[in-house]
């Protein structure tokens, strides 16, 4: 049994990491009142940038490449998210719609560029990825050491750390207070001299940056190349994780880990004796069914930030 956990948990964490990053991005954006269905597309851009950067600069930067690739993905994705910001904040676009547009555009554009640059449907395989590590001391702890702190990827652990950082930022700092105010009652924030548009721009671009990271680590660690199938639905799962986590950073992380766990259970499960004869399909739908049950059962209804989805127009009641 323990042995099984040693298999399931690490792969759960590794599945969850990209979702955590992206979901945290979603938290920023939606806490500021801007719906972001575009997370999927932003992940695509992240994955694309990460891989292309990695392939292009591997020789120059060697072992540093994947980290710089993440950085690049962060920057490019946050610039890309500007489109959503401009539409949703300045042009008062329907935020769902422009999010959908982002998704279409991201995939179309990145594949278009891949065909242009590489003359084929997918990139080559990246050569420099992240290394699996055992966290020095911690992994030596009996029982939990091998389960939680072995065979992991650095970015996976960073994701979890980041969740706490985001929690601190949103609930303990002036920036966080203002962010939440803007998402709950923008006019109140405005009368207190807070620049609503600016806050929302920052929030959306943060969501772009984080989704970018999510996409790039997914591509570098898992698929190692970029194609139409690299990001297929993870962004939506991250969105679900965010809502599931009630727009709370730690909640979102929990939800993402839960998805990850269900995912890896559905895969590793086939190797577990007492699950062996369960038809595969049940394991395949497990993560999704569990999510629905969880939401229905004990999580109950989540309530979104009050101003979510409504553009703020000065002087309008």
């Amino acid at each position, binding site marked *: 049994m323990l042995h099984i956990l040693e298999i399931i948990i690490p792969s759960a964490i590794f599945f969850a990491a990209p979702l955590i990053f992206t979901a945290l991005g979603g938290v920023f954006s939606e806490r500021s009142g801007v719906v972001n269905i575009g997370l999927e597309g932003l992940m695509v851009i992240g994955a694309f940038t990460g891989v292309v950067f990695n392939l292009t600069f591997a020789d120059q930067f060697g072992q540093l490449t994947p980290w710089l690739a993440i950085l690049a993905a962060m920057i490019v994705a946050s610039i890309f998210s500007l489109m959503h910001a401009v539409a949703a904040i300045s042009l008062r676009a329907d935020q769902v719609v422009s999010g959908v547009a982002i998704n279409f555009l991201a995939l179309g554009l990145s594949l278009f560029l891949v065909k242009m640059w590489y003359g084929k449907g997918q990139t080559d395989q990246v050569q420099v990825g992240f290394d699996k590590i055992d966290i020095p001391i911690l992994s030596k702890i009996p029982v939990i050491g091998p389960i939680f702190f072995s065979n992991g990827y650095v970015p996976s652990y960073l994701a979890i750390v980041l969740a706490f950082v985001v929690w601190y930022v949103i609930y303990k*700092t002036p920036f966080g*207070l203002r962010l939440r105010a803007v998402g*709950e009652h923008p*006019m109140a*924030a*405005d*009368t*207190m*001299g807070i620049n609503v548009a600016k806050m929302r721009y920052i929030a959306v671009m943060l969501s772009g940056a984080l989704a970018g990271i999510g996409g790039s680590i997914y591509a570098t660690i898992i698929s190692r190349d970029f194609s139409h199938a690299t990001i297929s639905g993870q962004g939506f799962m991250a969105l679900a994780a965010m809502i599931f986590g009630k727009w709370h950073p730690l909640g979102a992380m929990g939800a993402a880990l839960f998805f990850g766990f269900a995912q890896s259970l559905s895969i590793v499960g086939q190797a577990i004796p007492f699950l062996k004869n369960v038809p595969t399909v049940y394991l395949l739908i497990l993560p999704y069914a569990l999510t629905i049950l969880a939401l229905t059962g004990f999580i109950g209804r989540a309530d979104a930030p009050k101003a979510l989805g409504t553009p703020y127009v000065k002087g309008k009641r």
Partner: protein
Amino acid sequence: MEYVIEMLNIRKVFGNFVANDNITLQLKKGEIHALLGENGAGKSTLMNVLFGLYQPDGGEIRVKGKKVNIANPNVANDLGIGMVHQHFMLVDTFTVTENIILGSEPTKGRQIDIEKAEQEVRELSERYGLAVDPKAKIADISVGMQQRVEILKTLYRGADILIFDEPTAVLTPQEIQELIQIMKALVREGKSIILITHKLKEIMEVCDRVTVIRRGKGIGTLNVSETNPNALASLMVGREVHFKTEKQPSKVGKPVLEIENLVVKDSRGITAVDHLNLTVHAGEIVGIAGVDGNGQTELIEAITGLIKSESGSIRLNGKEIRNLTPRQITETGVGHIPQDRHKHGLVLDFPIGENMVLQTYYKEPYSKRGILNFKAIYDKARQLIQEFDVRTPDEYTKARALSGGNQQKAIIGREVDRDPDLLIAAQPTRGLDVGAIEFIHKRLIEQRDKGKAVLLVSFELDEIMNVSDRIAVIYEGKIVAIVDPKETTEQELGLLMAGSKRKEAGVSS
């Protein structure tokens, strides 16, 4: 000159609509200055200009003699101008303190220093006798308290010029008295106040001077000591207005609404209506007086079926209607002018026309076998619009585009036209100007004279006093007294509403 604020020939245009047209307002240090005008006269706009929310299209603003350009609320704050808005600007998921410090948070390191903030808030609140709990969540405190938080927000930013936009519209008599004390305290501390209100009594009571505007134009500034309510009213509306609505003595008939031992819990599961008894007869208007939050809302929502009640009985013309669905109840003959016209009263994105058949769309002639008959619907709409003088471009205009006042008239038209045996009116004149109020009161009395039963809930005592035939005072979910408006005074009512003196519980006369 010792003016702290001078707004000279201010002009503000929205699209091609002139909201403020060369309005001049000068505020002396240490005075309470009233700004009076009808709905849509341009009061809020003018103040929003002063507060930096809008930029003027003409005129100039001087603060303490020197010309300023108030580009945004920050500038206003720096100039010591603070505003308590008509529609509260509070984040109700935040605590009192969080709302107050928002935008100028004290920090230690990168982190908000919440202890320090709460301390400061507590001190301020004590200094002006506001008695607010810094840790409380906005959602959990009364409207009166919320308004004090708004005041604290301005004080926390060191404002010495305070703007109050219709602060009393949402307050109970007691709260109004307390607010007046607070304002006096503020003035004593050397602050100057601009007060927007539709209530002439208040102006007479606290203000030193008053500036009247009509349809965006400044009419003039008077010393309160040298004028009287009627003069002010006609200045503001531009014609004679009657405060006491004329009405014959009521011809009371058989009981229409009979409530016995009704128990209702509120959304938080706390008992809001507690074994309440009340009877309303045909041909009378029963006014429910009470401090906000004593169960009025729950009582009405229980009668109309919007929420379920725990126990007791509600009979309409002898028929038990407790916990029936809203539709069943409407069909048994209940009309309801809801307290929140935007939330319950209207589908703001529907045309006025379709809003007029909100409860009757499924009946002939508005539909046959599930198919809508738009001709019938819009004919009815046209009829009501002109009958109740709803000011709207046409019946296809979205309800959203109408002013609060006109939205309210539309709702009343709809409810009255269904000709219900019982008409429930909750805060029917809130935020409306004297003209509109007069009109609505006439309509309520008209119903009563047609032999209908009317149940009126309002926080405006003078409304209760001059419209009702009987006044039922509600306190902590019980009817604690039934009084005759002709034999009572606002003071007595105020005391009853505060729960001090108890008459025998509300058995109907």
